[in-house]
C-alpha cells in the first residue's frame, strides 16, 4: 500500500509538485489569517451576567437579583458550574460552560434565559446584562487622560472619556467594550434641605414627583396646513440648571415655591465604586479597551492605535490620551521570541544538513521539508481555529529538528543507493527502491512521535489550555513532515539528486568528509562495546544510577510563570475600607514605589468603574508599574530581578496585603476563581451565620488532623452595616407604611434619579437627595423626618431602630447554594489518606446540621482526575507504540530493545535540568515526552538497518559494528538537528522564553545520552535482542 503510494507519487511528479506548491500557498494564506495572541487563552469558557443595583447590600442583592438570575441559568445545556458573587451594589453570576462550547451559542442561550430572569427581578432592582464577549486576554489597552492645562475638572474629563473617546473607540472593529473609570460621572444634583421641606410643608416624594413631571418632550402627531403636514411636538425638557431651578414645587396663595427655594442645585459626581490615581499625586480619568473574543489581537490593537491618533486630534486643547498598558508590546515580544527561535533553528538545521549531507542538493531537499511542514501546520491551525501564539508557534520551534528527520532518513538512503547504483540502473527505480526500503520505518517512527504527544491532548484546565496548542502544532507539523518525507521527498530527490559518480564501481561509496572523520574514532569505540557487552551494561547502569541519584534532587513547580513584561502591584485592603481611605493609602504606596529609581511612573486602578470586564471590589487596588529603560536599572536581568527589588524596597505596608502580579495573569485568575490550595472543603447551606460557625468548627477539626497546614476559612463577613429596622408597632401608631419609611430612607440618604438632563445627545442623571450634612452621619440619619398621613413629621428614630452591625462583605454561591470554603494544604503525608481521615472526623463529630453539606475538592481533585485520565491514556499509548514497533519489526525482542532507549534518554534530561538549576515542571515534562519520541525514532533507524544487514547475511557482531558505523550519519543528524533546532529556545531571553527553556533543556540533554545509547549501547545489546530465528 505504502509502496504503491510512493510509486504513484514518483510517477506523477508534476502533480505532486503542483499539489505541494498549492498546499504551501494555502498554508501561507492561512497564516496571514491566523489570530495572533501572546499566549494561549486559558480563560474558562464562561458567560458572565452582571446586575448593577446601586445601594443594595449583599443580602438584598442575593435575594432579589442573584437568585432569580441563577435560577434562570440552571439546566442550560453544556453548563458545568454556576458561581455567583453578591456584592454591595453588584451581582455577578458566572455561568461556566464545558470547554469547547461555542461562546456565541452559550451567550445566545444565556440571553434567552436572561429575559426570564428580568421578569423575576423586582422593578427597580436592576437589569441583568451579559458581560463583554471577551476573555481574560481581552484587555488590550489601558489609557489615561492627560490634562496638561490643568483646567478641566474630573467631571469634565470623565465626560470627555464617556461621550467622546468611548464612542469613537467602540466603533473600531474588534473592540467589544470600552470602560471608563476615574473622575466623576457628571450628574445634576438636587440637594434638598430638609428644614426647607418643613417650612413649605413639602415631602421629599412631592419634590421628586415635581422634578419628574417638569422634564419631558412629547409628540402629538401632526396637523394639516395648506397641503402640508406639520408635526406637533411640545418641548419641556430641562436643558440645564436654570430650568431645574425654576421648577415650581408648590404654589401657596399664588406665591410659587421654586425648586431652588428648597434645594441646592449643582453639578456633581455620581456615586462611584472606583477611581484611578497616578504617581502619588492625585486622580486621573482612565479607560480600558476590551477586545472581542476570537479577533486578532495585533490587528485590533493596530486599529485602536490609528483611532487614538484621530481622537487625540479632536480632543480639547491640552488634553491627550496616554496609553499606559498595551498588550501589543507583549504580543510582539512573545511572537518575536518564537519566530526568532524558529528562524535561527531553521538556519542551524540547514547548516547541519549541509555539513552532514556533504552536498547542496540533498540538503536543499531536506531543508524544503521545513517550510512545507510549517506551512502545512499553519493550514491545519487555520482549519482548527488555533491562534498563533507563544505556545503554538513554540510547538513548531520544538518540532523543527524533528520535522527534517523523516526526510533525512529518506534522502540519506536515496543518496546511499544512488551512490551504490551502477550506471545502467534506472534512476527512478533506484530511488523507488530506496524509498520503499525506509518508507515503513519512517511512517512508524513519525507516527510514534505524534503518538507520544497524544497524552498532552488529554490535559485539562489551565495546563491543558496552555500546552495543548503546543502538542497540536507539533503533531500537525510532524504530520506535514510525514507527507513530505513519504511523497514529496522521493519526487524531489528524483529531480534534484544526481546518480553517484559513475566509474566508482566497486569502491566504497563516498561518504561526506565530515562523516568519515566521525567514523575514525567511532568505529573502535563501538567495536569495543560490541565485543565487551558487559561494559555497555555497566555504562547504562552508571548512567541510570546518576539519573536515579539526581532525580529526587530536582525541585518541582507547576509551570514557570510567564513573564508578561508588565508588573502590577496588587493591594488588597480591609473589606470595609472606604474609597477615600483606600485612595489615601494607594497614593502613599504609589509614592513609595516612585522612590524606587527603576520606576518611572505608576498608575493605579482602585475598585471598579463602569461594570464590564473589570469588577473589582472597592478594597482592591492595582498599581501598574512603568519602568525606566533597562539600561538605567541598577541590576542586570529581567522582570524577576526588578520584582525582587520592588518587593524589598516597598516593604511592609501596614494594613495592606501586597502581591506582585501581571495584567493577564491577574484577570485570568479572577475568571477562574479557582481554589489554589491543595484541599478545599466547601460547606454548603442556607444560613450565613450557621455556615460561618460550621466552617470555623470544621477548620478547627481539620487543623487537628496530622499533616494539616495553612488552614484558612474564607473571610465572608467584615462589611459594617447601618441596619435600619422599621418598628412595626411605632409605624402603626402613626399610620405609616413600611414602604413609606423605606422610600424616604432610600431617597434622602441614597438618592433617587428623577429624570435626565439632555445636553445634545449627552445625557446626565438628575439625582435628588438630602444635602450632605443631613444624611452623612448616623445622627443625621436618625433625624430624617418621615411625614405621616395626618401631617405630622416624625424623626426616623421614632419609627425604626438603627444599629451598627458587621454584615457579610459578599455572598458566594455555587450551583444555587450558599457556601463557605476552607482551604488547606497537606504536608508530609498522602493527601488521599488525609482526606479520608478528616472526612471521618467530621462525619463523626456531626457538626453539620441537617441541610448542610460538605464537599471535598481543590487541586488534589484535579490531580486525581488527571492522574486517572493519564493512567488510562498513557498505557494505551505505550501499548500502541509497542504495537507499531512490533508491526515494524515483527519482533518482540527488537521492540523491547528500542523501548529501552527511553530511560537513558530521560537521564540526560534530568541531568540537564539539574545542571541548569531548573525545576521539574509541566514544560519540562513536555520535553520528556518529546524525548520519548525522538529516542524511539533513533533506535528504530539503527535497528532497522542492523536487521537489514543481518538479512543480507552479515554476522551479528560484524553487522552491529558495520551497521552502527554506517548509520552514524542519520542518527547523529537527526539528533543534532533536533538539538540545534531547540538551541535558540535555550538561549533566548525574550518574553515567554521562560516557559520554553525547560522543554529545550530536557530535550537537548536527553538527546546527548540517548545518542550515546543509540550509537554505543544499542549495537552492543543488539545481539541479545536480535531475531534468532533468522540464523
Amino acid at each position, binding site marked *: 500500500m505504502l509502496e504503491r503510494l510512493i510509486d504513484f507519487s514518483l510517477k506523477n511528479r508534476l502533480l505532486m509538485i503542483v499539489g505541494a506548491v498549492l498546499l504551501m500557498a494555502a498554508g501561507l494564506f492561512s497564516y496571514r489569517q491566523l489570530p495572533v495572541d501572546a499566549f494561549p487563552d486559558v480563560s474558562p469558557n464562561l458567560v458572565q451576567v452582571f446586575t448593577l443595583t446601586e445601594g443594595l447590600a449583599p443580602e438584598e442583592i442575593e435575594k432579589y437579583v442573584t437568585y432569580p438570575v441563577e435560577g434562570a441559568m440552571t439546566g442550560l445545556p453544556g453548563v458545568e458550574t454556576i458561581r455567583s458573587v453578591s456584592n454591595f451594589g453588584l451581582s455577578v453570576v458566572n455561568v461556566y460552560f464545558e470547554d469547547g462550547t461555542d461562546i456565541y451559542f452559550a451567550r445566545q442561550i444565556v440571553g434567552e434565559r436572561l429575559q426570564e430572569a428580568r421578569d423575576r427581578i423586582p422593578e427597580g432592582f436592576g437589569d441583568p446584562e451579559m458581560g463583554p464577549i471577551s476573555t481574560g486576554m481581552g484587555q488590550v489597552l489601558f489609557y489615561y487622560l492627560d490634562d496638561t492645562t490643568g483646567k478641566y475638572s474630573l467631571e469634565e474629563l470623565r465626560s470627555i472619556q464617556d461621550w467622546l473617546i468611548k464612542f469613537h473607540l467602540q466603533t473600531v472593529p474588534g473592540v467589544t467594550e470600552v470602560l471608563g473609570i476615574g473622575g466623576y460621572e457628571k450628574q445634576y444634583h438636587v440637594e434638598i434641605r430638609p428644614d426647607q421641606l418643613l417650612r413649605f410643608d413639602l415631602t421629599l416624594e412631592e419634590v421628586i414627583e415635581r422634578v419628574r413631571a417638569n422634564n419631558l418632550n412629547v409628540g402629538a402627531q401632526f396637523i394639516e396646513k395648506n397641503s402640508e403636514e406639520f408635526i406637533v411636538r411640545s418641548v419641556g425638557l430641562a436643558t440645564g440648571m436654570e430650568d431645574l431651578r425654576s421648577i415650581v414645587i408648590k404654589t401657596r396663595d399664588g406665591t410659587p415655591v421654586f425648586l431652588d427655594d428648597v434645594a441646592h442645585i449643582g453639578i456633581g459626581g455620581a456615586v462611584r465604586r472606583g477611581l484611578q490615581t497616578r504617581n502619588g499625586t492625585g486622580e486621573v480619568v482612565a479607560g480600558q479597551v476590551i477586545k472581542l473574543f476570537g479577533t486578532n489581537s495585533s490587528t485590533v490593537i493596530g486599529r485602536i492605535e490609528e483611532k487614538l491618533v484621530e481622537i487625540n486630534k479632536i480632543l480639547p486643547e491640552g488634553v491627550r490620551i496616554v496609553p499606559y498598558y498595551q498588550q501589543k508590546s507583549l504580543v510582539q515580544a512573545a511572537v518575536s521570541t518564537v519566530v526568532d527561535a524558529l528562524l535561527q533553528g531553521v538556519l542551524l538545521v540547514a547548516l547541519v544538513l549541509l555539513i552532514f549531507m556533504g552536498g547542496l542538493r540533498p540538503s536543499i531537499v531536506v531543508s524544503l521539508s521545513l517550510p512545507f511542514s510549517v506551512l502545512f501546520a499553519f493550514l491545519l491551525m487555520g482549519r482548527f481555529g488555533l491562534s498563533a501564539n507563544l505556545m503554538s508557534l513554540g510547538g513548531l520551534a520544538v518540532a523543527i529538528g524533528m520535522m527534517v528527520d523523516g526526510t533525512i532518513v529518506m534522502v540519506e538512503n536515496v543518496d546511499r543507493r544512488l551512490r551504490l547504483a551502477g550506471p545502467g540502473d534506472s534512476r527512478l527505480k533506484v530511488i523507488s527502491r530506496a524509498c520503499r526500503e525506509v518508507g515503513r520505518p519512517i511512517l512508524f517512527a513519525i507516527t510514534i512521535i505524534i503518538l507520544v504527544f497524544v497524552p498532552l491532548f488529554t490535559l485539562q484546565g489551565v495546563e491543558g489550555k496552555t500546552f495543548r496548542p503546543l502538542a497540536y502544532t507539533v503533531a500537525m507539523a510532524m504530520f506535514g513532515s510525514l507527507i513530505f518525507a513519504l511523497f514529496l521527498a522521493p519526487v524531489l530527490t528524483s529531480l534534484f539528486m544526481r546518480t553517484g559518480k559513475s566509474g566508482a564501481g566497486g569502491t566504497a561509496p563516498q561518504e561526506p568528509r565530515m562523516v568519515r572523520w566521525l567514523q575514525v574514532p567511532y568505529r573502535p569505540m563501538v567495536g569495543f562495546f560490541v565485543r565487551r557487552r558487559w561494559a555497555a551494561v555497566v555504562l547504562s547502569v552508571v548512567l*541510570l544510577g546518576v539519573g536515579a541519584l539526581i532525580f529526587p534532587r530536582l525541585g*518541582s513547580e507547576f509551570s514557570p510563570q510567564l513573564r508578561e513584561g508588565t508588573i502590577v502591584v496588587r493591594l488588597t485592603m480591609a473589606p470595609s475600607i472606604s474609597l477615600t481611605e483606600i485612595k489615601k493609602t494607594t497614593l502613599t504606596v504609589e509614592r513609595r514605589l516612585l522612590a524606587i529609581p527603576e520606576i518611572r511612573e505608576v498608575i493605579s486602578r482602585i475598585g471598579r468603574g463602569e461594570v464590564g470586564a473589570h469588577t473589582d471590589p472597592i478594597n482592591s487596588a492595582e498599581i501598574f508599574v512603568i519602568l525606566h529603560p533597562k539600561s538605567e536599572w541598577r541590576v542586570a536581568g529581567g522582570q524577576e530581578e526588578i520584582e525582587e527589588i520592588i518587593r524589598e524596597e516597598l516593604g511592609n505596608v501596614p494594613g495592606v496585603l501586597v502581591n506582585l502580579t501581571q495584567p493577564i495573569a491577574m484577570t485570568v485568575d479572577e475568571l477562574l476563581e479557582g481554589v*489554589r490550595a491543595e484541599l478545599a472543603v466547601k460547606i454548603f447551606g442556607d444560613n450565613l451565620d450557621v455556615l460561618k460557625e460550621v466552617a470555623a468548627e470544621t477548620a478547627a477539626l481539620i487543623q487537628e488532623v496530622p499533616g494539616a497546614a495553612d488552614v484558612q476559612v474564607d*473571610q465572608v463577613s467584615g462589611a459594617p452595616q447601618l441596619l435600619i429596622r422599621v418598628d412595626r408597632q411605632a409605624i402603626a401608631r402613626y399610620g405609616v407604611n413600611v414602604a413609606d419609611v423605606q422610600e424616604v430612607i432610600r431617597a434622602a440618604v441614597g438618592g433617587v434619579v428623577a429624570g435626565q438632563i439632555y445636553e445634545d445627545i449627552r445625557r446626565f442623571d438628575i439625582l435628588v437627595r438630602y444635602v450632605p450634612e443631613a444624611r452623612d452621619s448616623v445622627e443625621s440619619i436618625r433625624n430624617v423626618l418621615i411625614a405621616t398621613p395626618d401631617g405630622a413629621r416624625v424623626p426616623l428614630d421614632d419609627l425604626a431602630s438603627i444599629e451598627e452591625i458587621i454584615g457579610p462583605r459578599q455572598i458566594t454561591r455555587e450551583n444555587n447554594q450558599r457556601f463557605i470554603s476552607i482551604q488547606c*494544604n497537606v504536608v508530609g503525608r498522602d493527601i488521599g489518606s488525609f482526606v479520608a481521615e478528616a472526612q471521618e472526623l467530621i462525619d463523626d463529630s456531626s457538626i453539620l446540621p441537617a441541610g448542610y453539606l460538605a464537599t471535598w475538592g481543590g487541586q488534589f481533585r484535579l490531580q486525581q482526575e488527571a492522574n486517572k485520565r493519564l493512567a488510562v491514556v498513557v498505557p494505551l499509548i505505550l501499548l500502541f507504540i509497542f504495537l507499531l514497533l512490533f508491526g515494524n519489526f515483527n519482533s518482540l525482542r527488537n521492540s523491547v530493545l528500542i523501548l529501552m532507549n527511553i530511560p537513558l534518554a530521560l537521564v540526560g534530561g534530568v541531568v540537564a535540568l539539574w545542571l541548569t538549576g531548573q525545576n521539574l515542571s509541566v514544560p519540562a515534562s513536555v520535553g520528556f515526552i518529546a524525548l520519548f519520541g525522538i529516542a524511539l525514532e533513533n533506535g528504530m533507524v539503527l535497528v532497522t538497518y542492523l536487521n537489514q544487514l543481518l538479512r543480507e547475511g552479515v554476522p551479528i557482531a560484524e553487522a552491529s559494528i558495520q551497521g552502527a558505523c554506517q548509520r552514524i550519519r542519520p542518527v547523529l543528524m537527526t539528533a543534532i538537528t533536533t538539538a540545534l533546532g531547540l538551541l535558540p529556545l535555550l538561549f533566548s531571553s525574550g518574553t515567554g522564553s521562560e516557559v520554553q527553556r525547560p522543554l529545550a533543556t530536557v530535550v537537548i540533554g536527553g538527546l546527548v545520552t540517548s545518542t550515546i545509547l543509540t550509537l554505543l549501547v544499542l549495537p552492543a545489546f543488539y545481539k541479545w535482542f536480535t531475531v534468532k530465528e533468522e540464523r
Partner: protein
Amino acid sequence: MKPSLLSIPAAFRYWIYLTAVLVTLQAPALLAQEHEDDHDDHEDVVKLSAAELEEFGIVVTEAGPATMVRVLDLPGEIQANDNHLAHIVPRFAGIVIDVKARVGDEVTAGQVLAIIESDGSLSSYEMKTLISGTIIDKHITLGEAVSRENGAFIVADLSTVWVDITVYQRDIPSVAIGQKVFVSGGQGLPEVTGKISYVSPVVEEETRTSLARVELPNPDGAWRPGTFITAKIIVENFAVTVAIPRTALQMMDGKDVVFVETGEGFIPREVKLGRSGKDRVEIVSGLSPGEKYVSVGGFTLKAELAKESFGGGHNH
C-alpha cells in the same frame, strides 16, 4: 543467555521515570502557598515606625479628661412674643374714615392707628394702639365697614421674640427649662444663644410634638416672626475622666476597641463606652488617663491585624 534479566532494571526505572514525569504534569502550584506560613509570631501587636505613622497619617494622643456635652438638634420657628402682642379691634361697628398706620410701622402706646365713624352714634372715634411695637398685621381699609368681630391691627413688640422649638416625643424627657440653646437661622443670621424659658406641658395631638420656648432679644428686628431656625439644645453637660474622639474607635469582632501604644507596639484594647457627646465618647473602662492611644488612623492598624484574611476569595 538471559537477556530478559538485563532489561528488568531498565524497564523498571523507565516506569519510575514515566510515572514521575506524569505526576509532575499535574503538579499543583504548591509553591504559591508557601509564603503564608509565618503568621503566628505577631499576636495582635502592630509595630510601626514614627516615619510610618507620619506616612499613613496616624495620630497618637494621650488619653485625658474632658467635658462633654449632649446636644439635641431640633427645628423651630420664630414667633412674636405673645406677652407683648396686641390685637387692636374697633370698639364699635362703623365705617373707616381714616387709616393712619401701615404694616411695619413702629408705633408707640396710645398712637392713633385709624379713625372710625360709629354706626350707632355716627360720631367718629380714634382707634389707638395699646402697646408700643410694630404693626405686623392690618385688616382695615378706607371706607370699609368694620365691626368688633374683625381684628383691625396686630401690634407686636418685636424687641423680644419667641423661638418655638419643636420637640419630638423621644426628646421630651431631655428638654428642661434653663437649658442653653444655640439658635441659628442661616441665611445671614448670626447664631445666638438663649435659655429655655418654657416647655409645653402637652404634646400636640396632630403632630405628636411638644414645644420648648426660648425668649430671644431682638433689638434690631433681625429675627422676624415666621423664620425657620435650627436649635441646638445643650441637654447635658458633664465632665468625664477619659473621653476620646469617635475616630479612635474601631470595631473588631463586634467589640469596640482602641489601639493603645505599649512598649511592644500598638495593641487593640477593648473599651467600654459611656455617655457620648457629639464627636467624643466617654470611656468607662479599658483606657486610663495618660495612656497613649491612636486617635486618627486606627483603621490602618486594624487592617494590618486582619491582613492575613484579606486573601480569601481573591487569592493570587
